């Protein structure tokens, strides 16, 4: 029991890990995430907080939670697998982009330059995790008498204000979009929204290059795995199984 109940507030510790990482040059950080599937209860709070934080329109999702059934009756279990962008070290989405709109930042986050993206969606086909979605331009209040104000609120992805103009093809409409570990929050010293809102603290986040960080400690656990390891993309999102 003593092992299960944490002796410290994990969120506070991760916050401190981030503060330490931000003191380093950007190229020396390596942001990563560990998701403890044994703690995830499938509440989808992370999915929804992500939608709210990034003002995601219909059809765009950065972090769905996969509900997987394993085994056959009577030996059946259920597993929940939150699936953010894996921020791969060898991302298949980057080299295929014909205009360098998607790239790996020095801190390891795979970013998209919305103003550069031409919307060809080659990157979406290249991602083995379906982590990229296409912003077609839908709105939640489509076909209703009034366009709600919240639909027009700008998002601040990548630290830039992106106003949403329904009916137009102004970015991010017409772009490929994906999880970026809430970079805009991260650079202000805040944890990604999904980590903050997880009711069971099933997400660990921080600098994988920092051996004292919680995330590095968790990623080194023998039960830490990555998805589709055989593809060689080297994800920086690990799962504890």
């Amino acid at each position, binding site marked *: 029991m003593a092992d299960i109940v944490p002796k410290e507030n994990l969120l506070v510790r991760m916050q401190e890990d981030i503060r330490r990482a931000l003191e380093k040059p950007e190229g020396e950080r390596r942001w990563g995430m560990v998701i403890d599937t044994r703690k995830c209860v499938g509440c989808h709070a992370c999915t929804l907080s992500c939608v709210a934080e990034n003002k995601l329109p219909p059809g765009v999702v950065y972090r769905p939670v996969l509900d997987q059934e394993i085994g056959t009756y009577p030996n059946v279990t259920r597993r929940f697998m939150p699936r953010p962008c894996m921020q791969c070290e060898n991302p298949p989405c980057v080299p295929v982009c014909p205009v360098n709109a998607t790239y790996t930042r020095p801190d390891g986050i795979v970013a998209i330059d919305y103003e550069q993206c031409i919307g060809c969606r080659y990157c*979406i086909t290249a991602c083995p995790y379906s982590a990229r979605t296409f912003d077609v331009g839908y709105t939640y209040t489509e076909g209703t008498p009034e366009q709600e104000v919240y639909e027009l609120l700008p998002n601040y992805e990548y630290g830039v204000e992106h106003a949403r103009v329904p009916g137009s093809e102004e970015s991010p409409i017409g772009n490929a979009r994906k999880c970026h570990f809430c970079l805009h929050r991260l650079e202000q010293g805040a944890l990604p929204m999904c980590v903050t809102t997880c009711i069971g603290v099933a997400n660990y986040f921080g600098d994988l290059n920092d051996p004292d960080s919680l995330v590095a400690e968790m990623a080194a656990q023998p039960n830490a795995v990555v998805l589709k390891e055989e593809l060689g993309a080297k994800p920086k999102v690990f799962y504890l199984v």
Partner: protein
Amino acid sequence: MTTFATPMPGNEVKSPNWVQWVAWALTVICLAAGAYGFYLRFTEGHAAASYGSYVPWGLWIAAYVALIGASAGAFGFAAVIFTLRKTEYYGLARLAMLVAFGAFAAGMTNVWLDLGHPFRFWKLLTQTSWTSIMGWMSWFYVIYGLILVVGLFLTRNGVIPKFMERFSWIAFLFAIAFAGAEGALFGVVGARALWESGLTPILFLVEAALFGVGLVAAGALIFGAMNQQAARMMGVAMLILLGLLLLLEWAEYTTALYASVPAKTSAVMTILTGPYWWVFWGLHLGLGVVLPGLLLLFGRGNALLTGIAGALIAAMGLATKLNLVLPALAQEELDGLAHAFTGPGLTFSYFPSTMEWLVWLGTLGLGGLIVLVGHRLFSLATPTRSSASK
């Protein structure tokens, strides 16, 4: 009605005028439908399309690869004729260049309208990423378009310049690189088991040649440019290419099914037994392989049957490419993804929307218009000869 192939006395097969009228009528209908489709595309954007996040490419991309492939094939056909100095087919080669240009324009319009930001297309040329096959293809398209326009312009008076005969082998190699690179665009995508195969670029090469010759045969029928000799030559070429296509498809599908790697098997089974099984069995195999194969076998040297077979092959090229593009994308990459989060576009099923069909028709109309007008503009009805024969 005039024939324009190098005269072979008593051997010309003239098409009735109504064939061209039908071609014009179909073109106008397609353009009219397309006009409304383009209107929808630019007023409602991609929201009026059925593709989305999990199946990000649809009808337009399939049409684009089919048309660009056919264009490269027709162009390669012309290049071979010039390289081998087959003067008796020079008229056919000129028609092939025009048909290649029409298919190219139609294909490029499909992919242009498919872009999320069509008016940023220039970035493909000014900020090209050389690690991307698509980046390379952008430049290939520019070079290819220029070659076609210059070729058509230089031969507009019916005389093939000497240097074109001498250097057409380079153009032929370019056509191979071009069509192969189109296949590599898919072949390098490791995330899609159906695409990621060394056979994919080879399959694209064979399909390009097949659809290209088919398109030229159809064009030759419309413009009455096919004599018995040409019909026999194109018929044999199409039969050989049909055989090669079947061989490659057999190799690809049977090895996938035998190996039973789930991602690939699942995609192949989607093609063979999925909800759109009839696209493979009916459109591709039935109308695109078996029927034209029979027409060619039993109608050797018959211009009408060869032209119809060519038209069927070229038209069913779309079915072949739909079977490449869609089943690969319609696979859940992670178990549970389909139901993890719902919303428009977050689905693995796809059928083109009305807007997509209309736009596609419009692009075909555009290609048809280019060929019909170009036939007069570049005086393709005049006899063609080599400048060396002056």
